[in-house]
Each structure stands twice: as C-alpha cells, then as structure tokens.
C-alpha cells in the first residue's frame, strides 16, 4: 500500500524529485550530445524516454546512472550530486548477452549483486531462489546464460538488478531485441515488479506504444543535440492491460500525438 501511495504522489507531482537533471549538457569528442536538459523524476514515477535514433536517449540514461559525468549542469540523486554509479541505481542493459557473466550460472549471476551488496553467504541461496522466482525463472538456477533464451536472459538480468534493491531502475531498451510476444509478457512483469517494489523507473525505448503503455509520463527527445521536444502525461488507469489499455481512447490519442512528433523530428 505504501508503494501505491507513493505512486499517487509521483503522478500527482507533489514529491521532491529523486533524480533531477539541471540544465545538463554533455559533450563527447567535441560533439554536443545533450544540451541544456532539465528534468525531474519523482520517487515511484515511471518515466519513458523516446526519440529518433541518435537523439541521446541512451546517453541521458547513462548520465542518470552516473556512467557519464555532465560537462555542464548537474545531475542529482536524492538531492546529492551524482559523481559515480551507485548500488541504489540499477541498470538493465539492452544487450543482456554482454551484461551477464557467461561463466556463472543464473544463480551465480544474481549472486554477483548480492556479493557486491555484502549479503552474507548464508543468506544468498534463499534470496537468489526468491529473486529467480520473482522474475519467472524458478528451476533455472543451475543454467548458464548461454543455455537460456533471450527472454530468459533478460529476466535474469532484471533479477540481478532487483538483487541490488534499487531505488531507481534504469532500463535501456531492455526488450528491443526480443520478439513481440516475449516483449508483451515482460512489459507486464516489469509493471507488476515495479508496482511491488515502488522503484522509480526511467525506461528508454524506441517503441512508442511501449512507452505509453508503461509510463506515467513520456518524454520525446529532439536530436542534434538532444533536448526535450515533447512531454506527455499518461493518464491511463493501472493496472494496465495489453488489450483494453491499448484500445483506450486516451492511449490512441497519445499514440497519435507521439507519432506526429517523431515524424516531425525525422524531417
């Protein structure tokens, strides 16, 4: 219930931001990737970022993760400047194949996060089993990532991120490489996981429908350099449903608005 209250707070916009970008500019190799980006993400909010390729959406996520430092402006987490990545912020990478340790089993990969977090080794097996069950991988603990399908590997990466007990989950096109059916299943699972944990999410995707389906708010970036072009509040009821939500008139209206925006940026 606490998380529901938190979500309400997040949507209604009364809470102080957990992550804030204050006039952030990033230059890499003499090129301005992101210019003057200001943005606040409230605790428990599900924010989706969309945009044409090369608009800097992944870069924005890496700034939020602390993997990049801005060349101008500030990125704050809980009011503190982000100087380096931290355990409370978990990142789900798109290329799960590269982000998992191929020499560790599913259990071992989840264990990596627990080891880093200082969970005593006696408590790890139970936690691992619980986390694998949460992401729908019970009974796969002994498998190596290479023995798992793409969808299962991405679930495993999500389990490892949950093991960090993150306040914020950063997801970089996590379902981009998966087939449509697997993707829809995982979308719903992420929604229920996030609802249960109350984590803040920044979700980068190039799939506009996915962004509206998942988010409380959708931000569209303009390219060269990356900056905010459109901001949409998604007032769709939760829990969301693959059929009824996607048929909702509001969903269709937002979809139209977002498609028009993306089309305009591509010209």
């Amino acid at each position, binding site marked *: 219930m606490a998380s529901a209250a938190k979500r309400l707070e997040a949507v209604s916009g009364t809470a102080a931001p957990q992550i804030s970008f204050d006039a952030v500019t990033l230059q890499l190799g003499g090129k301005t990737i992101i210019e003057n980006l200001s943005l606040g993400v409230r605790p428990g909010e599900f924010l989706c970022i969309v945009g044409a390729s090369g608009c800097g959406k992944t870069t924005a996520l890496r700034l939020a993760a602390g993997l990049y430092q801005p060349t101008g402006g500030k990125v704050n987490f809980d009011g503190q400047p982000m100087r380096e*990545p931290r355990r409370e912020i978990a990142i789900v990478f798109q290329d799960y194949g590269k982000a998992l340790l191929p020499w560790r089993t599913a259990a071992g990969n989840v264990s990596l996060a627990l*080891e*880093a977090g200082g969970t005593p080794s006696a408590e790890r097996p139970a936690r691992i089993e619980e986390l694998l069950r949460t992401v729908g991988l019970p009974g796969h603990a002994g498998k190596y990532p290479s023995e798992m399908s793409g969808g299962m590997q991405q679930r495993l990466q999500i389990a490892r991120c949950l093991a960090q007990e993150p306040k914020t989950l950063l997801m970089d096109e996590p379902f981009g490489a998966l087939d449509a059916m697997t993707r829809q299943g995982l979308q719903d699972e992420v929604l229920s996981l996030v609802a249960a944990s109350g984590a803040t999410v920044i979700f980068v995707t190039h799939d506009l429908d996915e962004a509206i389906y998942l988010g409380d708010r959708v931000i569209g970036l303009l390219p060269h350099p990356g900056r905010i072009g459109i901001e949409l509040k998604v007032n769709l009821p939760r829990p969301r449903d693959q059929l009824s939500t996607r048929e909702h008139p509001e969903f269709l209206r937002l979809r139209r608005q977002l498609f028009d925006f993306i089309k305009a940026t591509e010209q």
Partner: protein
Amino acid sequence: MNRAVIIWRVASFLVAAGFIALWQLIANLKLVSPVFLPGPDRAWGALVRGFSSGDLWSKLAGTLEHMAYGWLAASIAGIAIGAIIGSSRTMRTYVAPSLEFLRPLPVSAIIPVAIAMLGLTQAMALFVIAFGAIWPIMLATIHGFAAVEPRLYEVARSLQMSRLAVIFKIALPSASPDILAGMRLSLTVALILSVVCEILAGLDGLGHWVLLSARAFRSADLFAGVILLGLTGYVTSVAMSLAEHRLLAWQAAQR
C-alpha cells in the same frame, strides 16, 4: 561415447602399433646399425631396467621438477604481468614495442647470458625455463584482459565492486580461456627447455641421461629416455586438457 569415436580411437591405436612394428622390422633387418638403433624390444628392456634400478625414476623426477618449477614461475609471473599490462590501454601502448622485441628472441640465445650470470646451476635452469615459458602465458593474458567485455565493467561500476573483486570476479574468469591456452603452450616450452638446460649444464634429469647414453653408445638407454620424454609431454598435455575442460565447463555450454 558413440561408434564413430570408438572407431577413430581403434584406428589411431592401430597406426601407433603399425609404427612400432615397422620400427621393430627395421631394427631386425639391421637396416640401421644396432649400435644406433635398438628395436622397441631392447628399448622396452632398457626402460624396465632403468626403472627397476631406480636410475630412471630419479632422472624423470629431476626433469619433472625443472619443468614444473619453471612453468609455475612462468605462470604466476606471466599472469600477473599480463594482467597489469592487459588491463591498461596506456600500459599496452608503452610496453608493447619492448615485448615485440623480446618475444621473438630465441631463448637459446639467452642461455649463455644466464650461464654467465648464474653459472651452471638450478637457478640458471629455472630462469631460462621460466623466461622461455612466460611468453605464451603473458601474451595470452594480455589479450584476455584487453578483451574483457566493457559492458561487464559497467555492471561492476553500477554494483560498486572493489578493484580486487573486479579483477577476480570479472577480468580473470573472462580471460581464463586465453590464459589456460597460453599455459598449455608453455608446458611444451618448459619441457623442451628443461631438457636443453640439463644437457648444457649437466643437471640431473632425462636430458642429461639421454646425453650420457648417447655418448656411451647405449642406444637402448638413449631411446628409453627419449620415449619417457615423449610420454612426459603427452601426459602433461592430457592433464592440462582435462583441467581446461573442467575449468571451462561453462564454455562447453556456450557451444
């Protein structure tokens, strides 16, 4: 084991038996003087005699000791130095040219240098064997550390893992296939150099045994030593493969 594998195994044994039969035939027909070429029967006899008198045991132990110490020293130093060089791009840029100069240097060329500095001693042998055997391991380790998936380092950063944890939980396991391949190559180098050092410095071992047997025209003993050296190379290499297979079981899953 399936049928094809069994057939191949049987075939390879038949080929080996054929070679031994041919060797026996050549020896029996005295195509080569028995002074220089004993038959497999005489070589076997010399092996049995050598082992029952205990002479060959101590020689074998000597060679294994030279080989093992040199190889272990090379492995430890090679992995440590390789890890340092491999994990830093700057280091690679600075050190690579020197390595390229040292690497193709024939080890035999540094033996006189080693003898001049260390004398005809075990320390000299250890130095020469380790120096020769370090290259495959070090170069493989450098490559392995340089090729660690950058994404994994980002995962490590987001987990705020310590430097030590990153080395032992990410870089080292990731580089382990390369490192083990390098160690396997070095095993052969270590055996070769053990024999060379024993011959040159008169250190106790099979190299020395082979040399003395040849000088005394004891061809059966000479061949016994050579066979034993061949077996040593074969057995250590098989042991290494088994170790690799076990340690890299996750790679088998990948294929």
